[in-house]
């Protein structure tokens, strides 16, 4: 294969790609997943993928995730949240004063960053190479090959067909073939952390806050090891805040976040309705 074909193909693809970027059913808003969104934000700010200005990109990313409102979108949004959480972590780490202490958490954060960027690079690689596929297919589809029905006399040369099915067997085969196959679902549970119910976390929070009246965010997530639960609790707090069930206090940026209960505003029904948005 001539090497320059690839180059030609890429140039040629500019016009083709425009027509092919629409119409995918799982598209979240305009973006096909968190990597797609992240990539487009990075290129919007004209940043190098390895040297992302985290603040800008994280703000945009979070802003976009906020626009995901319908149940359908949220159903698909778990991957977005994982990326959002990682970005937030990284942004916080950037803002923190640099100390000399390197503890296990810092290392984990660095690993999370590397993993995110590596996955993003990988995603970008496949995205870029897909334009070659598109062009190669477009070019090849113009090619014409000889495809002429075999002459009757040659067709008669083939060995006689041996037919063994009765019409009943044939009907059964038709029925089996046309019965829609249950498409085995992708077990997302082994890929990502198991789904965490925001409603459950909200109920948990309400119980805790009713007892304690006021807690710091650190206390709220104190025992939790699972990042998804942390995210879910954080979202639950935001939801409760929106319902005016809790208030926040924070003395200084990055200072301790205190969450307080406002029991007079609470209505049990609101809590049960809250979960509905997130259930799939």
């Amino acid at each position, binding site marked *: 294969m001539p090497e320059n074909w690839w180059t030609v193909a890429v140039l040629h693809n500019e016009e083709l790609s425009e027509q092919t970027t629409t119409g995918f059913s799982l598209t979240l808003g305009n973006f096909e997943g968190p990597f797609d969104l992240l990539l487009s934000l990075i290129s919007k700010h004209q940043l190098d993928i390895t040297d992302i200005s985290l603040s800008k990109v994280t703000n945009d990313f979070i802003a976009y995730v906020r626009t995901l409102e319908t149940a359908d979108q949220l159903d698909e949004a778990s991957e977005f949240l994982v990326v959002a959480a990682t970005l937030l972590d990284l942004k916080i780490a950037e803002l923190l004063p640099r100390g000399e202490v390197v503890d296990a958490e810092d290392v984990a954060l660095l690993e999370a960053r590397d993993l995110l960027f590596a996955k993003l690079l990988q995603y970008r690689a496949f995205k870029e190479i897909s334009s070659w596929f598109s062009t190669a297919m477009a070019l090849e589809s113009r090619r*014409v*090959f*000889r*495809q*002429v*029905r*075999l*002459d009757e006399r*040659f*067709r008669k*040369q*083939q*060995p*006689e*067909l*041996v*037919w*063994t*099915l009765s*019409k*009943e067997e*044939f*009907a059964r*085969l*038709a*029925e089996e*073939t*046309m*019965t*829609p*196959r249950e498409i085995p679902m992708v077990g997302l549970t082994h890929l990502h952390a198991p789904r965490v119910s925001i409603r459950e976390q909200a109920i948990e929070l309400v119980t805790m806050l009713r007892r304690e009246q006021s807690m710091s965010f650190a206390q709220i997530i104190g025992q939790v090891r699972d990042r998804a639960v942390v995210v879910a609790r954080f979202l639950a707090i935001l939801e409760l805040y929106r319902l005016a069930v809790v208030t926040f206090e924070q003395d200084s940026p990055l200072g301790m976040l205190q969450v307080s209960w406002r029991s007079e505003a609470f209505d049990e029904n609101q809590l049960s309705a809250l979960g509905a948005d997130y259930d799939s």
Partner: protein
Amino acid sequence: MTHDEIAETTANEAPSLTNDLPEPIGTESLLGAVEAILMVAEVPLSIVHIAASLDTPVNEIRAAVSMIKDDFDGLSGSRQRGFELREVGGGWRVFVRENFEWAVREFVSNENPTKLSQAALETLAVIAYRQPISRGQIASIRGVNVDSVVRTLLSRGLITEMFTDSETGAINYGTTETFLENLGINTIDDLPLISPYLPDPNNLTDSESK
């Protein structure tokens, strides 16, 4: 070069010798175009038809076809081909040369086992109960591409092309007499009833247009 000149020169000269003539490229290009057309045509093509489609005078096409025929026959200095240009029913078409038909026979008998594959049977069943149906629709019922099994069924004479959808250009297939004979029934209506709750191609998105 005039049209008559081409006709004259082709009578005695090999195409490779036309290099001495003023417009060899025009000729070679015409020969290539005619060859290309003949190579993909499913039916015999008349000289007039080819002339019209290439927007070239009839006598030039006639001369070109005659040169190509001689060429395939090995009369222009090169090897006789395994294929030839034959005039049938008022048109020209590429056929396997008679003395190489043995090769095609061996090839054909090698290609076709006596029993249909499971994939072919399943595809035939879908076509039988859902005809007329396009390949895209069969594919979306079976969940796999069916191009090659449809070819097999066609070559076995069990199905036939019924019509081409004017909108999508998709060919719609149905079963043949041969199929009915194999199953021992008289008409499609004699097929045993199957559950009415199965996918109907009319309700399916053609998987090819997704």
